[in-house]
């Protein structure tokens, strides 16, 4: 079965420092990987995706993610964190042989302190 895992429930970063939110995947075949962000009392917003091509994917709000096949990882990164980046982040994979549904990780709460 396809799955993604986010090993950290919470990540704390000082404003201006680089941030990393980790995600590993277990997928048979080529993985389709996504990152979403959820601000308090809001729906999920799409950040970026990896389908094929360059391993470094750039997305919204200055975020990027690196697809690493050997480590089965898709970590989300940003060079300089902002307080406004504080939110709940979800990694997901697409189960394209099961009707296109998304399978989500458990989520990582990112807290950026000034």
């Amino acid at each position, binding site marked *: 079965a396809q799955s993604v895992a986010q090993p950290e429930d919470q990540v704390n970063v000082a404003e201006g420092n680089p941030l990393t939110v980790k995600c590993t995947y277990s997928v048979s075949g080529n993985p*389709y990987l*996504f990152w*979403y962000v959820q601000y308090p*009392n*809001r*729906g*999920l*917003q*799409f950040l970026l*995706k990896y*389908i094929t091509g360059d391993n470094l994917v750039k997305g919204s709000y200055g975020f990027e993610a690196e697809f690493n096949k050997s480590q089965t990882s898709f970590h989300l990164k940003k060079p300089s964190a902002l307080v406004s980046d504080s939110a*709940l982040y*979800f990694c997901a994979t*697409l189960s*394209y042989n099961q*009707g*296109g*549904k*998304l399978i*989500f*990780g*458990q*989520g990582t*709460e990112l807290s950026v302190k000034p």
Partner: protein
Amino acid sequence: SAVISQKPSRDICQRGTSLTIQCQVDSQVTMMFWYRQQPGQSLTLIATANQGSEATYESGFVIDKFPISRPNLTFSTLTVSNMSPEDSSIYLCSATGTGNSYEQYFGPGTRLTVT
């Protein structure tokens, strides 16, 4: 990208009653889904809303409890039937656009509290 709206945004309901949540997309989409999320937790897929046919339910979810309609390509409803406090949650609608972008867009959610 698709813009998705949901109504109501929140509601407080008594146990034993039913609530219907509406989901409207501003453009034609291929797939529509309904998720449930406890605050601060991950999302659990309830079902895939199929246009013109019965929804496809995930394990643990049944049509009698969560009837779903999708009369056209831009609209779907989820009903939470015979509610109990355990149904208190956030219900999210999502949709995948046409083409091969594979991106799934989400509505703002409906926060349901059952007393």
